[in-house]
Structures are given as structure tokens and as C-alpha cells.
């Protein structure tokens, strides 16, 4: 058991923390959000230069060669900064699908471009009816000579508006909710038949609903074997949960700090409101929730790529449950302890709350994962 960061990890942490501190004040973020795509291309380039865009990729594809811990470091810092750039969509999700399931050719073609910042990607998996069931897929991929033709609709694709390429989940065979018969396809976002409706999201970024009509995909753009993608879809989801958990820890720790600072400075009845014991104890309960969340994000990070799929699935469900619960408590109390100002767009704390609220709906909410965990027999085995 060892909580130490390696020298390299410590350096990564310092540099990304510094970046966020220097470039992601609340005011700076507001300005980035007003840009055309809702984020800043210059910063994206800077992330590339720092090696952040290739953190989980192997060195031979131009990557940083990091693992889940390195992603945790980046996501936690990005959570503190409420970073708007399409890191999660490009590097963690779509990049993750290719990193974990792609062919040698695909990795060589795509990962270096993600790494140097020239390629943006998004992961189009959810559909109108699918709710949180990853296997609930109606979009179809039909064989078309050597390649495939995709038809279907994908909703709430985060950063789907600016992505150059999409990783699309489509059904090759089987019924609506079958785990068998799914495929992952790399689709050019500007390909014929792809139309996107873009919109802002509650957490300050942008998403898109994407319609695919007779979109042709070459044989070489199938990730892994078409129809057998379920284990990979699960792996992507597990990496996503670990990354979201770390981002949530960053957001929660920011809310905690902002709130405690507010309690120390805000005066009412002639004293700092932080002198009121009831508010102190609430801030302590927030801290307990935060630390429980932090512990679980670490656990999720450890387990995110565990080879035992069953144990991994339970661990990631448990991670999402704890994070959901902690983030809801910390967020609601952060608002409450601020009073009126906490409910305004002008003040930063509400933006964290909106982000963590949306996060709850990404890759399954607390109830979804609690039910899944319970069905799987819970977390405590007789062996402890």
C-alpha cells in the first residue's frame, strides 16, 4: 500500500495544478466560455505542448505513457478549474476506446494526432431511449461490401459539436438491449449523412444530438471486431467513471475551499458566519463527504483497468455511487451555506454544483449503479 506519487507524477501534478491556477480563474473561464466553441483553442495547444493530451497513451504512439493515476491527476485539477476544453471527450472517451481496443494502425493514425492537439473526438453512445443502459442501442451498422453503413440517432454527445471524428456505438446484430452484437465505429464528423444539432449544456460546455443516415464507414474504421464490442464499451465506461470521479473530487474540493473561505469572510450579525457552530458542523459534514469521495476516486482509479471484469464492474459502480452521493451533498450544502449568492450565475460555486449535477447523469446515475452493485452481490465478500 503506497499513496506516494512517483517523481514524474508529482511533476505532472505540479504543472497541471499551476496551469489551472494561472489560466483558469473564474473570470478567465467565463471568457473562454464565450468563444465560438465554448472553450479555448490556445489552451488546447498548451495542453498538447505539456503532454496532457496523451497522458494515457503509450510512448510509441507519441504518448506520455501514463496510467489511471496520471489521468486522475489531470482530471482532479481540471475539476478544480471547471475546465471547458474537450479533454474528457477526446482523450478519455474516444481516445480511450482506441487506446484500449484499436488496431495498431488505428492507434498509429489517431493517437499522435490527439496528442499533438490536431484531432478532436467525441464518443457517441447514448440514445434517446437508452437511459443509462450501455447496451440499449438502436442505431444500426449494416455490412456494406467490405465496410459498414450506419443509421441512427445519438443524443447528448458531449463536445460532439466540435469533434473532428466520432466513435459511434451501433448495433450489428441482436435485440435492443443485447450486450452481444455491438460495434464501435470511427466516423468522420463531416461525413455524408452525419448531421449535428449543437447546444450549450448546464455545465457550461457544449453537446450535440447527432443523426447518422446511411453513413459509410470503411472496414479499417471498425474498432476491434464488429459485434463483439461489449467488453470494450464497458472498459471505456469504467475509465470514464474513474476520470469523472477524479474530476468530481477536484470540483468538490473547490466547493469546500470556496465555502470555508466564505464562512470566514462573510459577516452577519456582526460576526463571521463561520463562527456559528451549526454552519461549522455542516462544513465538517461536507469535508467528510469530500474525503469519502476522494478515497473512492482513488479506489476507482486503482480498479479502472483491473483485468477482473466482474470485480472491476462492482468497483466502478461503487465509485459512481459514492461520488454521486458525496457530490450531491457537498454541492447542495455549498449553495446553502452561501445563501442567495450561491444560486446566481455570477458566483463561482454554483457552476461547480451544475457541473457535478450533470456529471451524475454521465455514465449512469447513483441509483443505476447502486442497483447494479446490489444485483452483483454487493461489495463486501465473505473474505472481506
Amino acid at each position, binding site marked *: 500500500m503506497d499513496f506516494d506519487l512517483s517523481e514524474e507524477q508529482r511533476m505532472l501534478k505540479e504543472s497541471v495544478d499551476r496551469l489551472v491556477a494561472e489560466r483558469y480563474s473564474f473570470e478567465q473561464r467565463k471568457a473562454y466560455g464565450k468563444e465560438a466553441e465554448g472553450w479555448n483553442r490556445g489552451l488546447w495547444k498548451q495542453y498538447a505542448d505539456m503532454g496532457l493530451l496523451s497522458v494515457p497513451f503509450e510512448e510509441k504512439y507519441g504518448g506520455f505513457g501514463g496510467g489511471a493515476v496520471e489521468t486522475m491527476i489531470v482530471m482532479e485539477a481540471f475539476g478544480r478549474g471547471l475546465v471547458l476544453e474537450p479533454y474528457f471527450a477526446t482523450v478519455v472517451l474516444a481516445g480511450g476506446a482506441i487506446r484500449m481496443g484499436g488496431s495498431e494502425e488505428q492507434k498509429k493514425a489517431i493517437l499522435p494526432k490527439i496528442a499533438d492537439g490536431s484531432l478532436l473526438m467525441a464518443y457517441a453512445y447514448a440514445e434517446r431511449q437508452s*437511459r443509462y443502459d450501455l447496451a440499449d442501442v438502436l442505431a444500426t451498422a449494416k455490412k456494406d461490401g467490405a465496410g459498414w453503413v450506419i443509421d441512427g440517432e445519438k443524443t447528448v454527445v458531449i463536445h460532439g459539436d466540435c469533434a473532428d471524428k466520432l466513435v459511434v456505438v451501433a448495433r450489428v446484430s441482436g435485440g435492443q438491449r443485447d450486450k452481444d452484437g455491438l460495434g464501435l465505429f470511427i466516423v468522420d464528423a463531416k461525413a455524408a449523412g452525419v448531421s449535428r444539432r449543437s447546444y450549450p449544456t448546464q455545465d457550461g460546455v457544449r453537446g450535440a444530438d447527432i443523426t447518422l443516415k446511411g453513413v459509410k464507414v470503411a472496414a479499417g474504421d471498425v474498432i476491434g471486431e464488429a459485434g463483439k464490442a461489449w467488453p470494450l464499451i464497458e472498459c471505456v465506461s469504467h475509465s470514464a467513471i474513474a476520470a469523472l470521479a477524479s474530476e468530481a473530487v477536484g470540483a468538490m474540493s473547490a466547493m469546500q475551499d470556496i465555502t470555508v473561505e466564505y464562512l470566514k469572510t462573510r459577516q452577519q450579525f456582526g460576526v463571521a458566519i463561520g463562527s456559528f457552530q451549526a454552519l461549522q458542523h455542516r462544513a465538517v459534514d461536507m469535508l467528510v463527504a469530500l474525503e469519502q469521495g476522494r478515497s473512492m476516486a482513488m479506489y476507482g482509479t486503482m480498479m479502472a483497468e483491473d483485468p477482473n471484469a466482474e470485480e472491476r464492474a462492482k468497483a466502478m459502480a461503487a465509485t459512481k455511487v459514492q461520488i454521486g452521493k458525496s457530490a450531491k451533498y457537498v454541492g447542495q450544502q455549498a449553495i446553502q451555506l452561501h445563501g442567495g449568492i450561491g*444560486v446566481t*450565475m455570477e458566483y463561482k460555486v454554483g457552476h461547480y454544483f451544475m457541473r457535478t449535477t450533470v456529471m451524475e447523469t454521465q455514465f449512469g446515475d447513483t441509483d443505476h449503479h447502486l442497483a447494479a452493485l446490489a444485483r452483483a452481490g454487493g461489495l463486501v465478500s465473505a473474505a472481506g
Partner: protein
Amino acid sequence: MDLRYTDEELAFREEVREFFRTELPEDIRRKMINGQVPVKEEINRWQKILNRKGWAVPGWAPEWGGTGWDAVKLHIFKEAMHLAPAPEPLTYNVNMIGPVLIAFGTEEQKKCFLPGIANLDIWFCQGFSEPGAGSDLASLKTRAVRDGNDYVVNGQKLWTGTAHEADYMFCLVRTDPDVKKQKGITYLLIKMDTPGISVRPVVTLDGVPHTNEVFFDNVRVPVKNRVGEENKGWDYAKYLLGNERIGIARVGLSKSRLNRARERAANVTVDGKPLAENSRFRERLAAIEVELKALEITNMRVIDEVKRSAGNAQDPKASILKIKGSELQQAATEVLVEVSGRDVARSETGFLMGDEPPIGPDWAVTAAHNYFYHRADSIYGGSNEIQHNIIAKAILGL
């Protein structure tokens, strides 16, 4: 003892419900069901319908348009309104300035203002809170200095809902800075187009400019627009507290939200079955409903005490209504978020405020907006922490 409504009350409830069923314009009902925010025109239109019926200001003294209903009937009316669901009347007009003018205004002020307040020809906003004076309201600093027949007002107000749409503000200002903070406050009616007033809308987390900052730069207010005596404004403001009692729990509104959640959950599929049939979901709903039923009775018990005390009770039990009522309102908005799932992620302020069609399903896309905004339920009107302090002191004697 009988907690059931009398036959007369049941007949009244049916009459009221029938009115809401037939007279509430369908477009407005639709917006309310969708969780959209009614705009000024809609609130106006609906208030005028109520006024034609004579139900615009039921709680007021009958000579100024009140219905003379007792507390139980007022409760029945409010519940029917929430269940319709209809927009709440502009609270600043109906529940706040109207009753204050009736109690403390001059005859001239009453004649000049009350009919317009009831018919919403005059919109009021409330200028109480200030930066640095939130829960500690009496520490307000906005200054008014007498100059001939005017007061000259300088300062800043915060959390003035609808100020950007209002014709008038009822406003607390400090006229004597040298006495204990509750003394030395005066109650003014300020016309919003007076030179020197600037209004800066403040957008809340739902994306709507629900509130404002208002700045006063040498704003001249005629002395005749003072309510009551100089330096006695705090007493008039406190009088309002008694007028927030009935319906503060908003039981009907929460019921209405839960009904919507149940309907919607019937159309959401989880594991191949409707969410509405999921036992966890049903039990969560039922658990909130139980608390809500208990609160409904608690509400009636408080109403009963108000009735016994001839309507003048400042019952600290009302703080229980505020605490539990806001918790349950928030719980209902959380359930709607849960039902709506991923569709809450889109920011659909265009639809929320009524101009644009929704991108996602109309029933789902407002859920997060409302969830965010209703975090304020446990903050405004005396935060739940303040309500706890009130109960600890006034009921428990701690």
C-alpha cells in the same frame, strides 16, 4: 375533532377546482406543467382573470377586494392553484404591499394603489435585502435624507425579484443612522422610473434573470409615498411576516410535481420496464408523499391556530412549515431530475422562458433548471438555518 373537510368546504373546493379547470388558459397551464417560467404577460393575463372572478386578492380585507374566506378556504384555494397548476400571483403585490397598505397606508395611498395592485396594473418589487444584510436584514444601509417634500435615497438593494419589470418598489431605507438598527428604518414606495435608479438583472442558476441589483443615486421620493411614520418602517415590514404563513409549505405544488414525476416515469424505460414500476423509485416517491401528507396536516394545524387567534398569530410553528416545505419542494425537483435522466444536461433557457421549442422532450428539459433554482427555497424568506434559530428560541426556549 375532525381533520376532514366539512361538506361546505368540499363544495367550495369543487367550485375552486372547477374554476381552475375551466378558466386557467391552456397555454399557461401547459407551461406550468412543463416547469417553464411564466412571463409577465402570462401572470398579468391570469391575474386579470382572477380579478374578474373576484379572487385576485382573496386574503385582503373585503372592502379592498378580499373574499372574506377563512384560513381553511384560503388554504383550499392555494392548494387548488398549485395543483392546477396555475402561476402563483405576484407575491410582492398580493401578499406583501397590499396587506401593508391596507393596514398602514393613508386613504389616498389605498385608493391610489390597491386597485392597481390587485389587477396587476401596477407591479411591485421588494427592496429589503442589501449586500451585507441578508439574514441580518435590519443592518441595512441604504440611506434616505429628507429634503423638502422628498426623501433623497442613495444606496443599493439586492435580491429584488422582478425589479426589471416592476413599476414600483416597496423599500426599506435608513432615515436615522444613530439609533438601534431596527429603529431608524422607513418604508417608502419608489417609482422605478425615477431618475437615479439603475437596475442590473442577476441571472440565477436556471439561466433566468429572476432577481436584480438596484442602485439608487440621489433618487428623489415624494414624502407622500412614505408608508406610515418615519423611522417605524421595521414594524410594517415585520407585519408582513404574518402574511406568509398560509401556503408557505406549498404542499399542493409539491404534490403537483410528484404527480408529474409519476406520469413521466411511466414513459421512461429502465431494464425494459417503466421506471414508474421500479420498486425503488415508487418507494422513494411514496416516502416523499408520506412526509407531504404529514406536512399537509401540520399546515392545517397551524391554520387552525391562526383561526383561533383571529388571524394575528405569529406562530413560530410556521417555521416548521418553511423548513419541511422547502425540503419537500426540493425533494420533488430532485425526483424530476432523476426521472429526466440525461436530458437534463442540455441548457434550454430558450424554452424555459417560453420563446423557443425544446430540443429534448418538453417534460424533461426544465428539470435541472428547476432543481438549480429551487435550491433557493431553503434560502430566501429567512434561510432554514434562521428558521432553526427561531424555533430553538421561540418554541424550545434554548
